[in-house]
């Protein structure tokens, strides 16, 4: 069991090296990379925006209640934005990204394998690592930080909606406390780094699972499940490690 898991991790590591080696060749297929960014990025916008809005609204409600105990509701904007930029934005977006884009990448590549499309590319002297795997991996790295930014923006909008519009917090206090307390480099950019790393990890797991799935319907089903489970675990573990280093 442990041996199998270690073998999987090793195979995934070798697969990552294969993708990195194929990236220069994949630049010839730049249109495919852009198509994948559209597919995993733009097509995930609805779920990211909706979830971002509700997460922000919940944060606004909960934090307003907690802060009001100490008479510190003026700090609502600061606390919400720091929570979103530093943690919730990158992590929740990555978990949603794994569920929305990761599973579709795994299922798509798994079906391509099951229907010999990858073998057909090999036979046409087109390297599937450069044409299929690398563009999806790059798309994950590019799309994730953009999606996390959208998530953060909608989250702050949601918190503003609850805190200012509904609960009567002063609009100027909300924004001025936020802008004075949030540091672009320490808070926003660190969140972007995290998003890039999570995007790479989720995309790698999704592509690897699809690429190595047994060519059966059951195999594809298990592979999509593994994508979500492994991505979630690795994202949360990596979040702790990155937070420790970026503090």
């Amino acid at each position, binding site marked *: 069991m442990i041996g199998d898991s270690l073998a999987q991790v090793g195979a995934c590591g070798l697969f990552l090296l294969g993708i990195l080696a194929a990236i220069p060749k994949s630049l010839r297929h730049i249109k495919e990379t852009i198509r994948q960014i559209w597919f995993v990025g733009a097509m995930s916008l609805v779920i990211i925006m909706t979830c971002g809005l509700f997460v922000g609204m919940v944060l606004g409600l909960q934090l307003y209640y907690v802060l009001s105990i100490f008479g510190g509701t003026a700090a609502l904007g600061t606390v919400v934005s720091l929570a979103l930029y530093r943690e919730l934005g990158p992590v929740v977006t990555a978990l949603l990204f794994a569920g929305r884009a990761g599973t579709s990448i795994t299922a798509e590549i798994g079906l391509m394998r099951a*229907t*010999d499309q990858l073998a*057909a590319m090999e036979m046409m*002297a087109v390297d599937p690592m450069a044409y299929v795997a690398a563009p999806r991996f790059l798309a994950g790295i590019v799309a994730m930080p953009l999606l996390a930014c959208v998530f953060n923006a909608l989250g702050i909008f949601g918190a503003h909606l609850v805190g200012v519009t509904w609960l009567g917090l002063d609009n100027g206090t909300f924004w001025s406390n936020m802008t004075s307390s949030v540091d672009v480099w320490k808070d926003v950019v660190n969140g972007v780094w995290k998003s890039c790393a999570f995007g790479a990890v989720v995309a790698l797991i999704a592509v690897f699972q699809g690429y190595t799935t047994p060519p059966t319907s059951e195999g594809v089903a298990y592979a999509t499940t593994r994508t979500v489970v492994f991505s979630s675990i690795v994202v949360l573990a990596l979040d702790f490690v990155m937070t420790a280093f970026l503090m």
Partner: protein
Amino acid sequence: MSQTRQAVAGSALVEVRGLSTTLNGKIIFDGIDLDIPRGKISAIMGPSGTGKTTLLRHITGQLMPDKGEIRVDGRNVPKLSRNELFDLREKIGFLFQNSALLTDFSVFENVAFPLRQHLKLPEELVRNIVLTKLQAVGLRGAAELMPSELSGGMARRVALARAIVRDPMLILYDEPFVGLDPIALNQVLRLIRVLNDTLGITSILVAHEFSAIRRVADNVHLIAAGKIAAHGSPEELANDDSPWTKQFFGGESDGPVPFHYPARDYAVDLGFPAAAT
């Protein structure tokens, strides 16, 4: 004998020597030798599971053998690097058993795919080449359809158009006649013959339909039990009276090829006492 052998080997585009393969513990090839002559249509036949498709995968370097040499146009496939293999594959067309069309692309884009990936041709020329190939398989009118809108036979013809779009030196057809109606079958047979004769292409067909093979192939190799059981022209094999050829071409259940997969005693499996022997 050796002079004849050398003469054959010299004119062969594909030379297989001492090929041995074991898959999942089962011996597929047991040291077979095989020559595919240039410019000819060679058929590989044999009972299901004897490794006909595996042989094609060896020739194209998709699967490496345990032992043996596979030379295609003088290059030993198992020894080629990935880049060298891709160079070789650019000169090979392969028709997959299940067509293997790219499901995100239209029929036109599927056929254009190898051209777009390897050649920087003007769009007008790509369009003309693709439409010419689609016309040859009778599907020019289906250029804008998606693979999901095609029948099995149509998908096979699109895959054939894609396999020939770069006028390769060697085409491998894996079960090309499955799912074709009699009209399409005639057209595909004619197309395979015309491609061979006009462009000097070498073709390897894996198929079970001896009536179709008889009309198009120049020579036939019958594989059974990991060996080449017989080879010669279709007429020679049709008149051959070895037990392999008689059973296979006669479609008889009794002979050296067992119809049943190895199993326990039937009565025991059904829960009856084993019959006394």
